[in-house]
C-alpha cells in the first residue's frame, strides 16, 4: 500500500477548499496497516464540511480503531473540481488519514443520511476503481456496506451495496468485523465472496439484498423473499439498550477547516416517542434511551478541555425532553464543566415557553435567532401529523423569545401533508403574521422567517401509504403562501425546491427498479443532487422514462392497504398494524400522547426487542407541550385515543 499523497498534492493548488483533502484533524487516528486487521474505509457521500461532523461515522471510527483486529480511515465526496482533477490525473478515491487508495481497503462503508446522495454513492464506488454493481465484484474487491437512516428502505441501492445495516451500529459493527476477519483469514485464492455474503446475512440486523428474490406482477411488487436459508425472511433493526455503555465519540474530531456544526456535540438521548407521524427518525429509533446526566456532564467537561471549543450542542431528536435538561444547562453555564465561557446550543427545540426559558439561560450574548417547528399551519393539521402544538403554545413561546431579547424567530413548516386543504397552507402565513405582531410588541423591527419544506412520505411511518403531492401541486401551494406573506412586513418566506422534493420521494419509497434510474442519472453526470446548483430534474425524468417508470407510479400515488411495500421484509420494530391504525387515526385527526409517560400503544419497538424506555424522570417535563401536561381539548374538540389495559405494559 502506497500513499497517494505525492500525486494528490499537485492537484490541491487548483481546487477550491483544498483543506477538505488533507486530514490531520485533532482526534484522528492514523492507523498502521499490514497487521492482519480488517481495514475499513468509512465514507460520507457528501462534501467534507457536511460529512465530517457526522456523529454516527465518528462513533464507528473510534470503535473500530479501538479493536486490535480492525482499523478505520475516512473519506468524503470530493467536490466536482477535485473529482475531475483526480480522474484526469488517474488518482482514485483516497482516505484522508494515510491517503491510501479506497481499493486497498477490505471494506467501503457508507453513511446514508439523506436520499439525494445516492448518485454520489455510485460515483464514489466508481472513483475507487470498484465495479459499481455488486454483481460485478470479486473477492479481490472491497465489500461495500451501508448504514444510517436511509437503510430502512435500501432497495434503490440494492444493486450497488453488498450489505446494509439497520439500526444502531455500536454492537453490530464488531460482529460484522468478526465475519470479515474470519473470511480474510483464508488464503486469498480460496476466498468465496458468496460465502462471505451469507456470513454477513447471518448477523442480526444485516440485510444482504442479493440473497433475496424480488417478484413483480406487471408493475406491482408482489414480494421480496430469501433465495437461501442463510437469509432471514425479515431483517430486524439493531438497538442498543443502554446509551451509558457507549460514551462515544470520546475523541470527537476537531477539523482544521470550517465545517457545519463546528462545536462539541454530546448526544443526550436516542429515540423519540413524541409520535410525530411524518418523522421517520422518531419512528425508527424507538424507544427513548437517555444518557445518565452525570455522564453527559463528564463528556462535556472532557470534550471542552480536549478540543478547545467554546460551544457545546446537546443533541437528540428533541433535547428539551431530556429529563435532566435544566440541571445540565445550569452545570455548563455555571462553570461546572470547565472554567471558560461556553455557550450551549439545543437543536430541535420543543415549542413552548418553558423551552424558551431554558434557551434564555444559555444564550448570554448570541441572541440572534431562535427556531421552532410547528410543522402544520392549523390545529387540525397538527393533529393529523400528531405535532400537538396549540396556537397558545406557539404564541407564548414566540412572545417569550422576543421579550427575552431575540429579534429573529424562524418557523419550520411542511406542506403537502395528508388531508391538507388550502386553509391549512394559508394557516402557515396567518401563524407567521401573528408571530410578527407579537414581535412588534417588543421590538421595532422583528423578523419572522417561515421556512417551508415539501413533505416526503417515509418508510416505516404511518404516512408510508400516502401519495406524495406532485411538484406542481407543491409549487401551487408555495405560490399561495408567497401571495399571503408578501404584504406582511417583517415576514420572509423560504421554501424548498418542489422538484428536489419529488426526487427525494423517488429514493425514499422506490423499489429495486430505482437502481437502474439512479445509475442512469449518475452516468449522465448527476452527482451532488442535494446541492441546488447541481440538481437537475430533467436527468431524473429521462432516466425514469428510459426505465418505464414515472414519478406517478413510484411516489405520487396512494399505496393500497394490502400492497407489498418495498421495505416489508425489513423491520424497525414497528408493527404494520400499529402503523396502519396510526394512519387511520391521522386521517380522522385523532391525536395520540407520548408513550414515555402514558400507557403503551404496543407499536412493537420495545416489546419485540425486549427493551424499555430509559428515562430518568417518570413525569413529563414541566410546561411540556405536544400532548403532555396540556388539555388537548382546548381550542378545539380534540379526540384523544385512550388505550385499553391490554395494550399497557
Amino acid at each position, binding site marked *: 500500500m502506497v500513499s497517494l499523497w505525492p500525486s494528490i498534492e499537485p492537484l490541491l493548488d487548483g481546487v477550491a477548499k*483544498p483543506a477538505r*483533502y488533507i486530514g*490531520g484533524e485533532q482526534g484522528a487516528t492514523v492507523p498502521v496497516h499490514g497487521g492482519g486487521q480488517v481495514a475499513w474505509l468509512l465514507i460520507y457521500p457528501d462534501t467534507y464540511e457536511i460529512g465530517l461532523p457526522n456523529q454516527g461515522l465518528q462513533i464507528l471510527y473510534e470503535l473500530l480503531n479501538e479493536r486490535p483486529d480492525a482499523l478505520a480511515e475516512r473519506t468524503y465526496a470530493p467536490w466536482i473540481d477535485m473529482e475531475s482533477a483526480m480522474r484526469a490525473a488517474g488518482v482514485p478515491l483516497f482516505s484522508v488519514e494515510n491517503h491510501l487508495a479506497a481499493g486497498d481497503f477490505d471494506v467501503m462503508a457508507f453513511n446514508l443520511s439523506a436520499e439525494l446522495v445516492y448518485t454520489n454513492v455510485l460515483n464514489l464506488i466508481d472513483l475507487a476503481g470498484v465495479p459499481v454493481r455488486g454483481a460485478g465484484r470479486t473477492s479481490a474487491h472491497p465489500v461495500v456496506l451501508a448504514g444510517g437512516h436511509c437503510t430502512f428502505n435500501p432497495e434503490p441501492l440494492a444493486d450497488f451495496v453488498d450489505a446494509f445495516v439497520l439500526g444502531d451500529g455500536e454492537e453490530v459493527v464488531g460482529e460484522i468485523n468478526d465475519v470479515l476477519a474470519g473470511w480474510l483469514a483464508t488464503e486469498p485464492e480460496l476466498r468465496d465472496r458468496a460465502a462471505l455474503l451469507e456470513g454477513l446475512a447471518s448477523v442480526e440486523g444485516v440485510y444482504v439484498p442479493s440473497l433475496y428474490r424480488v417478484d413483480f406482477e406487471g408493475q406491482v411488487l408482489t414480494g421480496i423473499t430469501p433465495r437461501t436459508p442463510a437469509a432471514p425472511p425479515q431483517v430486524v433493526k439493531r438497538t442498543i439498550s443502554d446509551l451509558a455503555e457507549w460514551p462515544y465519540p470520546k475523541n470527537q474530531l476537531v477539523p*482544521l477547516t470550517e465545517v457545519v456544526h463546528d462545536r462539541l456535540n454530546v448526544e443526550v438521548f436516542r429515540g423519540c416517542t413524541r409520535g410525530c407521524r411524518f418523522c421517520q427518525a422518531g419512528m425508527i429509533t424507538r424507544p427513548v434511551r437517555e444518557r445518565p446526566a452525570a455522564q453527559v456532564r463528564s463528556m462535556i467537561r472532557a470534550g471542552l478541555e480536549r*478540543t*478547545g471549543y467554546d460551544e457545546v450542542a446537546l443533541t437528540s431528536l428533541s433535547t428539551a425532553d431530556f429529563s435532566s435538561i435544566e440541571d445540565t444547562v445550569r452545570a455548563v453555564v455555571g462553570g461546572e464543566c470547565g472554567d471558560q465561557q461556553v455557550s450551549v446550543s439545543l437543536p430541535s427545540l420543543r415549542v413552548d415557553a418553558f423551552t424558551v426559558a431554558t434557551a434564555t439561560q444559555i444564550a448570554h*450574548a448570541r441572541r440572534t435567532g431562535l427556531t421552532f417547528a410547528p410543522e402544520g399551519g392549523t390545529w387540525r393539521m397538527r393533529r393529523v401529523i400528531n405535532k400537538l402544538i396549540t396556537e397558545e403554545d406557539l404564541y407564548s413561546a414566540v412572545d417569550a423569545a422576543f421579550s427575552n431579547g431575540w429579534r429573529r424567530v424562524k418557523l419550520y413548516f411542511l406542506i403537502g401533508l395528508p388531508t391538507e386543504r388550502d386553509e391549512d397552507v394559508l394557516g402557515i402565513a396567518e401563524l407567521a403574521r401573528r408571530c410578527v405582531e407579537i414581535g412588534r410588541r417588543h421590538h421595532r423591527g422583528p423578523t419572522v422567517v417561515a421556512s417551508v419544506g415539501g413533505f416526503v412520505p417515509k418508510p416505516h411511518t404511518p404516512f408510508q401509504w400516502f401519495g406524495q403531492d406532485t411538484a406542481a401541486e407543491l409549487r401551487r401551494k408555495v405560490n399561495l403562501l408567497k401571495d399571503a406573506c408578501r404584504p406582511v412586513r417583517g415576514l420572509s418566506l423560504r421554501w424548498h425546491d418542489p422538484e428536489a422534493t419529488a426526487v427525494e420521494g423517488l429514493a425514499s419509497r422506490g423499489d429495486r427498479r430505482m437502481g437502474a434510474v439512479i445509475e442512469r442519472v449518475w452516468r449522465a453526470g448527476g452527482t451532488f443532487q442535494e446541492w441546488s446548483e447541481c440538481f437537475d430534474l430533467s436527468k431524473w425524468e429521462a432516466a425514469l422514462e428510459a426505465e418505464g417508470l414515472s414519478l406517478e407510479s413510484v411516489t405520487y400515488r396512494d399505496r393500497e392497504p394490502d400492497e407489498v411495500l418495498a421495505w416489508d421484509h425489513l423491520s424497525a420494530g414497528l408493527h404494520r398494524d400499529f402503523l396502519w391504525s396510526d394512519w387511520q387515526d391521522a386521517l380522522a385527526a385523532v391525536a395520540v400522547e407520548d408513550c414515555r409517560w402514558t400507557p403503551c400503544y404496543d407499536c412493537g419497538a420495545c416489546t419485540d426487542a425486549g427493551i424499555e424506555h430509559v428515562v430518568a424522570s417518570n413525569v413529563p417535563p414541566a410546561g411540556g407541550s405536544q400532548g403532555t401536561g396540556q388539555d388537548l381539548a382546548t381550542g378545539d374538540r380534540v379526540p384523544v385515543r385512550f388505550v385499553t389495559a391490554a395494550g399497557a405494559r
Partner: protein
Amino acid sequence: MADRLRVRFGKVGKIRFTSHRDVARMWERALRRSGLPVARSQGFNPRPLVAFGLALPTGCESLAEYLDVTLAAPVDGPSEVPPWGDSYPDLVTLGLALSEFLPEGIDVGALAMVPSDASSLQQEVTSCSWELEVLGVTAAELVRRVELLLDAPTVSVRRERKGRHFDDDLRPSVRSLALFEPPEGSTASGSPSGFLRAELATRPRGVRPRELVEVLGTDVVLARARRTQQWIECDGARFEPLSADDLGRAVGAPHAMGRAS
C-alpha cells in the same frame, strides 16, 4: 494597560492548504486550551483579542507568521508575576505548550511580551521574503526571465476589482528576485525545477507569489511557495517583528523596544 504577547509561528506541510481564517480558529481553540488569560472584546458578542498579521495565501508555507495576543491584566498580585500566573513558569514552557495544542505543521518559533502600544502587525510589515519553487522552464530560461523582469521599468498586470478593470504595476513591489541553489532533498517534485528568492513589498500594493510567477510567463508554474521572513522598515533599518531566536525573551522585539524607549 494590558499585556501583549507576540508569537511567531510556522505553517509547513499539509496544513498549508488551510486558510488564514482556519488558522485563526486553530489559534482560538489552542489559546482556550492553554488557559492563558486572553482579554476579550467588549460588546454584544465578546471575542478574544487576537490580531494576526498579513494573511498567508492558502497553499503557501511560512516560517514567519505572527499573532499578537492581548492578555487580561492580572487582577492583583505582585507585578513580576506574569499574567498567566504559575501555569507556565516561563515563555519557553509556554511556547512548547502552545505548539502541543496546535495541529501538526503549526509550531511556535518564538514569543515575547511587547509593549501594548506597539502598532499592529498588519500596519507595520513593509515587505516579505519568499522562497519559490517553479516548474516549466529551464534554469537558463528562468535566469533570462528574471533579468527581463528586473530590467523592466514597469510590469503591468490587469486585475478586476468590483467589476472594473485596473492595470497595476507590480514592478515597484518587487524589491529583489534571484535564483538560488536549494539544500539537498528539498524539492517538491521529481521534475526539474528552479528556485527563486524574492522580497515583495506590501505597499503600495501587496504582490502574491502566484502573481509574480505569472508575470514570468504563462509557461512557468508555481510548485511551492514559502514565506521566510516578514520585514518592518523603520528609519532605514530593517527588523523582523520577532526574530527566530527570540524564543523566551521576556522583553520585546528590537523595534518595539526602540519605540517604547
